């Protein structure tokens, strides 16, 4: 070959930053006896009836392709679910696509709407994939930093300040990974006014919708004026404990969905057939298990938030997801230093906040999707670690502030 291989790579691909989580994962995975608060997925195994329905579909030979947007039966269940739970109505015949995880849905959304140079506002701290997916689709991700004073909830003002002529869309993720902050209906109404004023689209990642602890989840698509400009993205990973299935879905205005479907059929054809049968069972019959998992997370959230605050790692009470995002500024360490030293000294893995964007510096993400005995031990070790850093907490219990 005439050139180095790097010469053949696309400029966009070359410029993608490797995920900061990767480096940390390699270090944590090489150690024994680590308690991990770094896991971004449920500690529950998928409810048995979902697994059983999938086994049955394999036994019955459901191994062919399905329609590109997924089985009609599943799309119907998805529309019943969205209406029942969040009050938003979609037509299963042309407004819904079953995707390979919510991640593929986000990818489809950006590919369908972005022209070269279009800007997408990304509320930060944010899940690590959003900005790279915008870049891959030719757009420019524009971070909108949120602040701890407002519980990491984005405000209409912060959004407006970031809007330029090139802004085409905003990505909202509520409840949020990594902060757990959750936008209420009132918050969304305020944000919606700005979105409408500037005529933007919304890509709404609602993957944690089932994990709201203090009040019912509100979908931005249910806010007046938003339905026709929102691509709603959800899936089975978090609420139904189905991360490894890679099964998600999107719903939106027909004109947008038709274009996303074109891309979907050329890139993936369809989501795996047998897994779609599991998803039908999930939506039909496992809601009691979803509720029971949610209750379990809520209790653990209450425990972890109060204990961290008592230890001197201040954190707001997240309204959803299974993360807390405490400040580690009192230690004088950077997020990465903190995470690395904690891992080496006490064998507790957390994720440094800066991997979720610049505004995450000074914070760490702790997942409480792990058993109570493990959480108790992890927090005990963290307390010991903090003492060596001269951080002493206030042991008087504080009430969890649920708004």
């Amino acid at each position, binding site marked *: 070959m005439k050139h180095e291989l790097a010469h053949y790579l696309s400029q966009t691909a070359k410029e993608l930053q490797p995920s900061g989580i990767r480096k940390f994962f390699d270090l944590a995975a090489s150690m024994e006896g680590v308690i991990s608060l770094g*896991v971004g*997925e449920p500690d529950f195994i998928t409810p048995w009836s979902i697994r059983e329905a999938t086994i049955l579909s394999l036994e019955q030979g459901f191994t062919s392709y399905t329609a590109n947007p997924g089985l009609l039966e599943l799309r119907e269940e998805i529309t019943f679910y969205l209406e029942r739970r969040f009050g938003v109505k979609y037509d299963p015949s042309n407004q819904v696509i079953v995707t390979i995880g919510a991640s593929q849905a986000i990818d489809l959304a950006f590919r369908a709407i972005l022209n070269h140079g279009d800007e997408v506002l990304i509320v930060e701290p944010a899940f690590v994939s959003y900005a790279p997916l915008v870049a891959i689709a030719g757009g420019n991700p524009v971070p909108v930093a949120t602040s701890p004073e407002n519980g990491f909830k984005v405000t209409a003002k912060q959004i407006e300040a970031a809007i330029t002529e090139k802004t085409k869309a905003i990505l909202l993720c509520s409840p949020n990974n990594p902060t757990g902050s959750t936008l209420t209906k009132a918050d969304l109404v305020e944000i919606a006014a700005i979105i409408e004023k500037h005529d933007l689209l919304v890509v709404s990642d609602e993957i944690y919708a089932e994990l709201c602890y203090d009040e019912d989840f509100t979908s931005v698509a249910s806010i007046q004026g938003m339905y026709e400009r929102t691509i709603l993205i959800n899936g089975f990973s978090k609420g139904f404990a189905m991360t490894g299935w890679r099964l998600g879905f999107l719903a939106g205005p027909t004109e947008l969905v038709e274009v996303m479907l074109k891309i979907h059929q050329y890139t993936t054809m369809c989501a795996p057939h047998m897994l779609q049968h599991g998803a039908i069972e999930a939506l039909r019959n496992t809601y009691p298990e979803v509720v029971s998992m949610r209750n379990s997370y809520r209790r653990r959230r*209450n425990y972890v938030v109060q204990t961290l605050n008592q230890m001197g790692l201040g954190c707001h009470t997240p309204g959803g997801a299974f993360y807390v995002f405490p400040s580690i500024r009192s230690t004088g360490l950077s997020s990465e230093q903190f995470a690395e030293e904690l891992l080496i000294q006490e064998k507790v893995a957390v994720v440094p906040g800066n991997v979720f964007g610049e505004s995450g510096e000074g914070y760490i993400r702790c997942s409480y999707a792990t058993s109570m005995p493990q959480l108790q031990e992890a927090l005990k070790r963290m307390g010991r670690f903090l003492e060596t850093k001269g951080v002493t907490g206030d042991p008087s219990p504080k009430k969890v502030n649920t708004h």
Partner: protein
Amino acid sequence: MHLSSEEIEILRIIEENHKLPIQSIALMATCSEDTVQKTIDKLEQAQIIMSYPTLIDWSKVDGQENVIAMIDVKVTPKRGVGFDEVAQRISRFPEVSSLYLMSGAYDLSITVEGKSMHQISNFVSEKLSTIDNVISTTTHFMLKKYKHDGVIFNSGSDDKDRRMVVSP
């Protein structure tokens, strides 16, 4: 008895794990330690919290394996007290680990535990069958426990944490 949602929350937490320290329960239920202690005391007194048994898989301990039998019992109910009198009478035997009144082909379902088949057959022939109101018994010996009180036995690697240590 009507319980507040806070009291029910405390019950749900200790139902899953009664070994949690009061302090942790208080944090999970977002109430004071004092409230947790008082609630538990109250519910113990009211016999809503009945006891705190530990589920042990004795089959894994050499020389400690028990023989367990489930016995279907037909009895004659008695005017005025129905099945209660005979049921209570049977329930007092220490060999009886559970006893339920059932609908269907027989009346009482009894679980009996003993050291040997011999001990259980002795119990059935000498104690249970000789009670006045007992008409018939059918004894089924348990061969293997797969699940008990919601807990799967010998699940092997089923409940192993297979997640990656760190993920986004």
